[in-house]
Structure formats: C-alpha cells, structure tokens
C-alpha cells in the first residue's frame, strides 16, 4: 500500500504524440506556469535521439527561471550519449532550477537513430570504449541504460556536499579527500570521474523510468494522430496490441532498471488492475535488488483527453478512486492536447482534488524531492568514508 498520509503525486506531460513540437520558449513557459498554478509535482517533456523539436532538457532549463516550484523532468536518451555529459547536464538543470530537476531515462533502439551517429573507425583515435551498438536489442540497451543511470548517480555523488572549503590558511579551495574518482567500468564504457559539477542541490536529481515505453510508430517515432486516444478511463482501441508491443520494447528490462535505480516509475495503464500488478511487480523486483523498504514511487501514466468540464470532474473522481484502491502512488497525465487539457485540468480537476484532500493548496517544499516526499540522499562516498572511520 502507498503510505496513506502522502497524497497522490501528480505530474503532467507537456508534449503529446501527434502534436507537432513547438520551438518557442513562451509556449512551454505558459504550460509549466499553469501546472505550477495547479501545484503539481512536476512536468515531463519527452525526447528522442533525433528529435523532432528542440532538446527537452534545454527547454526545461530555459523555463526554469520563469517558474519557482514545479519539478522539471526531461527525457534524456542514453544510448548514443556520453554518460558524463548526461550527468553534468542533469546536475546543471538542478542547479539552475534550485533543486527541481529530474530526468527520464530513455534509450535508442532504431537503425534511424544509430545512423545519425554512425561512426566509421576513426583514424588516429585511440579508443578505450566500444561504439554504441546500432539498433541493438531493447534488453541490451536497457541493461546499458541501467549502467548509465548508475554512473550518473555516482558522478553526482563524486563531490561530497561539503567538499568546497575555501580555506585561506592552507590556500585550498576544496578538500580533495571529499572529491572522488568514480572509476566505473561497465560492459561498454568506463568513466574515471570525478564530476566537474559540484553536487547538485538535491544531491541526486530525481531519476524516472517509464517502464512501458512509448507505443512506437512504424519509424520508431511516436505514433501519429490523437484520434485513437481514449477518454480517460475507457480502454483504448487496440489496447492489447499496445501491451504486446510493450513487451517487444523491453518492458522486462525497463522494469529491472526502474526497480534497481529509479526514484519514480511510470506505468502506462488504462485500468487499475494493470497499474496495481505492475506496481507489485516493481516493488518485488526492488526488494530483490536490496531496496527494501523503498523502491520507486509508481505513478500510473494515463492518457487523458478532457473534451468538456464534465470530463475534468470525472477525472478527479477516477484519480481518487484509483488512489483509494492503492494501485499507484500517484499519476502522470499524458494529455491529448496539452494546451487545452491542462487548462481544463487546472480549472476543473485541481479544485476537486484539493477539496478531497488529494492535492496540496500550496507548495510546502522547494525541491522536487520535497514535493514527492523523497529524502535527500547522502553521497555514497561520504557514507563510505564515514563507515571507514
């Protein structure tokens, strides 16, 4: 059971399949401010290696100074990206938002994405690592994504919180005993460390894994068209096909990474049973990884289309109902039309949730971890040093 005292966590996606991506900051700022007005925990912005649209982390960095409390969670793909860059970019998002950053780990499995980084044997390049595998199996790339999430966390920890000392007497700016090489060796890459970025405000920005993944269109991109999206609570047409495809997309491997490393897992579900079963499975896997008690917060990720204010009220009832059944720790809403649906949600659903005590009326904390009720983790290196004393 989710802890009864914490109301459901609430997040909303700023992007939607089939809606062409916007390139202007004002669009995203307006949406994020609206979500902040609704006192949601965080917004997500999807991304894929190869676009389309602007880089998601860049967009959320751009709107960070224009918002104050809302958590900012871009998708960051790991397959063709340097783990070191992923770590510094997300840490920096946490710095510029003063502790409101997270990231959704995603992979690239298609030939089309691999072709964008196709590299021949580079002359004169003394390699220590292997190339990212083109169009590899989901299980393989997810296992590597797990390693990336691991080393990213270690790099965040590689500066202990109090490493900076500015000690004039000895002329030392940092206490180097509190800076650590991470010396991570994965199956396909290695990273020496430490990070170049001091430990971010949240210690570790929030790591999110979507355990179901997108229902990919034929070219590996999101499937076009919003016509097929269900009204909330109604099973989608072709729902079983979606589930079948999810397995192909490495759902088991996604769940393993989420169970081992995620703070938040997103489970795409159209009925409470599916969500509840996925949650139970994730928590069992997390226990097997030695995360008991604990494990990720599991948010049911729901497709939502609010065609009328009646739908907005219906959604409040549905969220309350699912939450009462204990099938999820909260919800991630995938809006069919973010501009229209978020306005309806904040206007119609938010007040009802507040009335029922299911949503804060104002933010108490300032960081995303505080919103979610997640503690700020100590650096693993600080803990090891403590233990060795």
């Amino acid at each position, binding site marked *: 059971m989710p802890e009864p005292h914490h109301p459901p966590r609430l997040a909303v996606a700023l992007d939607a399949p089939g809606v062409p991506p916007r*390139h202007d*900051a004002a669009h995203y*700022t307006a949406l994020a401010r609206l979500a902040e007005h609704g006192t949601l925990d965080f917004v997500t912005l999807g991304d894929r290696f*190869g*676009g389309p*649209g*602007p*880089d998601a*982390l*860049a*967009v959320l*960095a*751009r709107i*960070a*100074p*224009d918002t104050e409390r809302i958590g900012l969670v871009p998708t960051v793909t790991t397959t*063709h990206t*340097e*783990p*070191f*860059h992923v770590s*510094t*970019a997300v840490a*920096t*998002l946490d*710095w*510029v*938002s*003063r502790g409101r950053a997270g990231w959704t780990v995603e992979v690239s499995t298609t030939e*089309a994405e691999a*072709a*964008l*980084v*196709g590299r*021949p044997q*580079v*002359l*004169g*390049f*003394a*390699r*220590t*690592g292997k190339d990212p595998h083109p169009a590899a199996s989901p299980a393989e790339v997810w296992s590597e994504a797990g390693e990336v999430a691991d080393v990213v966390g270690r790099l965040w920890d590689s*500066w202990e919180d109090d490493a*900076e000392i*500015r000690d*004039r007497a000895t*002329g*030392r*700016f*940092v*206490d180097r005993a509190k*800076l650590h090489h991470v010396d991570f060796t994965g199956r396909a*890459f*290695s*990273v*020496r460390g*430490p990070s*170049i*970025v001091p430990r971010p405000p949240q210690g570790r920005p929030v790591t999110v894994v979507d355990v179901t993944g997108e229902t990919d269109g034929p070219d590996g991109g999101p499937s076009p068209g919003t016509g097929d999206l269900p009204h909330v609570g109604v099973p989608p047409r072709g729902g079983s096909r979606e589930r079948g495809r999810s397995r192909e997309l490495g759902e088991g491997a996604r769940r393993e990474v989420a169970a081992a490393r995620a703070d938040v897992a997103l489970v795409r579900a159209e009925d409470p049973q599916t969500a509840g079963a996925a949650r139970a499975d994730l928590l069992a896997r997390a226990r097997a990884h030695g995360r008991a008690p604990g494990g990720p917060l599991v948010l049911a990720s729901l497709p939502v289309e609010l065609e009328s204010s009646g739908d907005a009220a219906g959604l409040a009832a549905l969220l309350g109902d699912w939450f009462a059944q204990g099938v999820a720790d909260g919800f991630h809403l995938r809006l069919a039309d973010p501009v229209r649906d978020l306005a309806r949600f904040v206007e119609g659903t938010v007040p009802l949730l507040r009335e029922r005590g299911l949503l804060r009326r104002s933010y108490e904390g300032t960081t995303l971890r505080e919103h979610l009720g997640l503690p700020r983790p100590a650096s693993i290196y600080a803990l090891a040093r403590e233990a060795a004393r």
Partner: protein
Amino acid sequence: MSPDPRPRKQIHLAAHFPGVNNTTVWADPPTGRPTTTPAGGTSPGSSLGSQIDFASFVHLARTAERGLFDFFFLAEGLRLREHKGRIHDLDVLGRPESLTVLNALAAVTERLGLAGTVSATFNEPYELARRFASLDHLSGGRAAWNIVTTSDAFTGENFRRGGYLDHADRYTRAAEFLATARALWDSGPAGGPPRRVDHSGRHFVVRGEFGVARSPQGHPVVIQAGDSAEGREFAASAADVIFTRHSGPEAGRAFYADVKRRLPAYGRRPEDLKIMPGVTFVLGDTLAEAQERAVEIRRQQVSPQTALLTLEQVWGVDLSSYDPDGPLPDIDPDPHGELAQGRVRIADPQAVADRWRALSRAKGLSIRETVIETTGRQSFVGTPDSVAREMDHFVQSDAADGFILVPHLTPDGLDPFVERVVPLLQERGVHRTEYTGTTLRSHLGLPDPARPARKD
C-alpha cells in the same frame, strides 16, 4: 595626429564567466573587505561569490547586458586538473555544463549573446548541432558555439569513446564536425519538410533527418579558440570569431594581420571574422591606485602554495620542501616530469627555468615574487579613462576587433567596468548606446549564413 581616413571600428565586448584557474580570486585578503551580506548576496568588492549558484551567472549576464555587451561566454573543462596524481585543490573548482546554463540565462536576458565552449573531440555532430539549434530557438537567435579541440587522453578517461587525437587530427576532425553541423542546420525545416542529410567523411558518417526547425540565426555564431597555425587556418575557413590569448599591441597586430590575410582564400572578407583576445583589467581612481590594486590581486592569485605548484609544473619534480619566500631551486627541470595533468604542457622547461632564475637573481626575487612577475599580468591597468583609451587604441590600430573580458571576481567583477569604462567607450563613439538588432549575428555585424538552394 592626422585624422584616420577610415571610420572608427566598433569595439565588440564579451563577458567571460570567471574561470577555474588562479586568475579567479576566491579568498579575500586578510585585511578584509566587505564580504557576504545578510541576504546571502555578495557586496561589491567581495571575492566570495559562488562559482556555481545560478545567481552568480544571472548577475554577470545581466551586468554584461546592462553594458550592452555582444555576448556572455562560458569556458569548458571536462576533467578536474590533477597535480602529482591528486586533484588540484588550490583554485576555484567546479562549474556547470555550459549549454544548460545558457538556456536558463536566455530566460533572464533579452539581447545578450550566449556563447558556450563545447569540445568537438568528446561529442558527435548530430547531438551538438541539435543542442545549439535548440539554444538558438530558445534564446531567439543568441547562440554561439566556441568549438575547441581537447586533445588529451587524461580527459578522455571520462568518456565512452576515450582516447585522444594528435594535434593535426584534432583540427581535421573539428573542421569536418563543423561542416557536418552546418549541413544539419541547413537541412532543418523552415516551413517545408525536413531534408535528409547524407554525410560520409573521414571522421563521421551521419545519415538522416534533422528534426529541429531552422533556428533564428540559421547557424549559431561559431567561435574558435586555438592559436596555432592550424587553429588560425580553421578559424579563417569556418569561424565567425577567434578567441585568442592576449599579447601586447605589436604581437596583437601581427596575429591580426596573419589571421585576416588568410580569409580571402576562403572567399571571405576581413570583417567576416572578429578577433577577440581574452583580457583582464584593473581600475583605480588614479594610475597609482590601479597599479597598487593590480599588485594586490597578483598576490591573491599567486598564493605561496600556488607559487610552488607553478614552479613544479615547470620543473616536473616535487619541490614541496622549498620555501616560496626563498630563492629558486638550483636543480634543473626534469624534461620528462609529468606532474600536472589537464594543463597545457610547457614546451621547453629548461629555457623557462633558466629565464626565471636569471630574473630572480637580477631583481632579488623570491619564488613567489618570480611567479607573480612572470605569469598572468593584467592586460589593462589604469583609470577608467586610460583603460578606455588604451582599449580603443588597441582596436583602432588593428590589434583586435574587441575583447573577451575575464573578471577576477565572481560574480561582480565586471560591474566596475560596465559602470565606469563602458560610458567612456560610448562617448568615444566606439560602443553601442543601445542594441539595434535582436540576434548575436546582428550585434557582431556578421552576415546571415547563405542557405544552399534545394537540390530536389
């Protein structure tokens, strides 16, 4: 003086966020100037500002915009430097990832260009083309990319690809990297459907579509930092700005002439590439006061520990038993000594050691005084009026097109320059009194990149 027949050149100005090296002063002198205010901010003159809090970046960027600067600039270093196998701990350390900070700064500035240094060695063309196009969109056409060519295997240890390139390969890779990025920027849909890019070269094979729409500047401004002949040639062929080390007027003029001479071969005009050395400054109400302050800053930059470490970088051996206030070592440098990692290697340590010992003997200088004397002088020291005059002369005499100012205090080291020198440059008619354009290209007077016609 006979009147110059040419119109006066406008001075281009950029603000460098203080670096992670000993140029940046992080400890107030023991005499104590005002430090932290109760609100947590820093009061003017304090050197205790954070090098990582976003507020510091906002402060410097807004100061630069108040001074109508062309752009704000961030350097990059992808591995913490080490000395004797341990992390170097004497200088300011720790900085954010450039592009993420610049995107955030786009929200708190309106016209200021936003330049980030990103290595061509440890990235791929597709991802960087997309990230810079994103910044250009999100800032309304203010993005710039300082493309550097990191070379060392030491830095490579942080990366999947690892490794390093030798000097010549670094620039061929950088040139192909940039050409590929430009092909991607040119392919972005501007209303129409995306075009396919099909690049196959020595360093990269990139096939596919670029999903980012054509950005406001078409191509972000490209800066090149590297002084060698290869670096100059690369800049002449492909860059909009060259960020160079500062040297005196004569060496500056020689560099300037050399670089501009290379442009016609690429069908470019002299004004298509701006030459901007990185410079420091110290101001005072009188020249004597400025000079005194400059000496004080040098003492802060070169602590006793930093003096010994600087010496060890030349000698290549442990010198920790020497007294920084005593004489230089009699022993000769070890040409194979490898104490410092992540720094530029000194080409001829024996020659440097001989020069420093001669200077020390001639002037009776200690180790610390010798290091202070021989390294990192301030570029412009004087009253606001004399500094404005010198800078103007430097530009009008074709030793530069402008400057990248490197303050030695975070975050308010630029404030005095903007308050006291900028108005004088404006009076001289060599600095804008308002922004006339919205993009960085327009601030720099650069042409819009030509877009190749559709072939299909």
